[in-house]
């Protein structure tokens, strides 16, 4: 009998842990690095105070599950429903009122064409004319200059539209959002029908979504052959960098700092370069960008004397950040660097 009970308890321990996830622990592990301890906000939006007072539970749940494609917030597809529920419970424990915010799932019928015109006049200054937000990056990071105290959300986003019901959007326009600059309907001078028209317009963004598929030719590393010897290739690259307005840093051999100088391979040189104007813009979009910066081209002389250039495929690396704004700039950077390689290896 005792043995059976013991065995039963052994079974129960992990089951109990699985059955009752700890919201605080889960929040600390998955969310606090961006949303800060106690939801004060950082790279991610603030989750405490007035801002989430009227957030419906379902909206927060779906936001965690689906994320915001192209807007830093990742989709937490591997968390169980119970784990997400526990996180939502923990976040909602910061609410000042125990009032439960619930909104109808009914569709709102409005005139999306009229809504588009109103959106351009009343909403686009903050949410962007295409609904993708006018604020660079997300959240409330105050460490750098910000146009908005809290970056206005991108409404034209599959994650947002799948999480927000029509009536939740309607309520937000009607009542504004306390703790942010989002004004209520009265201040926007909108009629009830006009609010519905705007909701219909926002909902119509869904029609333009296409599933992103990786291009077959995408390679994580770009490799180029140089027709020149090692020193000439390095010299050519520096000349091209200057010509394209990049600033390059002092030469560094790849193994430098990891072993005594006499042991390091001096035929593997990393040319690090930067355009500070662009760097500033990029880290305002996502401050974590340092994990792939500065731009680098590594020049390597092979044992047979042939010289190859290696660099990160910026277009592909940018996608790791789940940030459309970043991806667009990375594509421009990619083109500049291709031009640079062409010039240097011509």
């Amino acid at each position, binding site marked *: 009998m005792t043995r059976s009970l013991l065995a039963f308890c052994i079974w129960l321990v992990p089951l109990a842990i699985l059955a009752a996830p700890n919201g605080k622990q889960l929040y600390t592990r998955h969310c606090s690095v961006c949303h*800060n301890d106690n939801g004060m906000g950082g*790279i991610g939006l603030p989750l405490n105070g007035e801002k989430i007072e009227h957030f419906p539970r379902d909206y927060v749940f779906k936001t965690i599950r689906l994320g915001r494609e192209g807007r830093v917030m990742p989709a937490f597809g*591997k968390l169980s429903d119970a784990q997400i529920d526990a996180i939502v419970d923990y976040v909602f424990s910061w609410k000042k009122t125990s009032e439960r915010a619930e909104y109808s799932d009914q569709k709102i019928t409005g005139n999306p064409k009229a809504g588009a015109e109103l959106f351009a006049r009343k909403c686009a200054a903050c949410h962007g004319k295409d609904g993708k937000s006018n604020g660079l990056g997300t959240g409330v990071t105050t460490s750098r200059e910000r146009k908005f105290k809290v970056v206005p959300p991108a409404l034209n986003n599959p994650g947002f539209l799948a999480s927000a019901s029509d009536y939740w959007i309607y309520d937000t326009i009607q009542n504004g959002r306390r703790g942010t600059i989002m004004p209520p309907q009265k201040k926007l001078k909108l009629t009830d029908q006009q609010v519905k028209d705007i909701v219909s317009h926002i909902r119509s963004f869904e029609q333009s979504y296409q599933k992103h598929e990786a291009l077959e030719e995408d390679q994580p590393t770009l*490799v180029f052959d140089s027709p020149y010897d090692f020193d000439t290739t390095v010299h050519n690259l520096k000349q091209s960098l200057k010509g394209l307005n990049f600033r390059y840093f002092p030469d*560094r051999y790849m193994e430098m700092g990891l072993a005594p100088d006499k042991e390091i391979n001096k035929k593997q040189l990393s040319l690090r370069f930067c355009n500070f104007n662009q760097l500033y813009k990029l*880290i305002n979009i996502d401050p974590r960008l340092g994990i792939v910066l500065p731009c680098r081209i590594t020049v390597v002389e092979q044992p047979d004397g042939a010289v190859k250039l290696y660099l*990160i495929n910026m277009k592909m690396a940018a996608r790791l950040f789940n940030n459309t704004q970043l991806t667009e700039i990375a594509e421009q950077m990619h083109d500049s660097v291709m031009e640079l390689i062409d010039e240097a290896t011509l």
Partner: protein
Amino acid sequence: MNRCKKTIWLRSVLLCLLWLMVAPAQAENMIMVRVHQNFDNTMILLKEALNDYGYRIAHIQKCDGGLSGFGYKTDEYKSVFFGKFQEMRHLTGTHPELIPYLPLKIAVMKENDSILLAALNPLSLSALFPNEDLQNQFGRWESDLRAIFDELAASKEL
């Protein structure tokens, strides 16, 4: 051990293993941690932790210095390049396609009263470089980075 006992024991172990597999279910593109230290202390602790795991700091890129020098407002921000000499020499020889991703890198940035550390999750490279012999390497890096970040997150103020 009789058969029944064995079965119960085995099932319990299996269940625990299952739980362990589910609990750290994460493979995000980035590994991040928030550290409640000042910037200088974080750098000291990071250096110590990297050394403890056999890595050496190759270089520290002062992104903040560069930006300030060009008149941009920025908080403290550094990129720490680190690695193991023999490991890097071996990998650049056998898998030159990894060259742009080496040495490994951690971005260290101030955010209000705390410090954020971010690194590319080495496991996210698995999909990009599917060679079988690299998978253990990515797994080791990932496990080291998580352990280092956990140590820093748990560190007491110096």
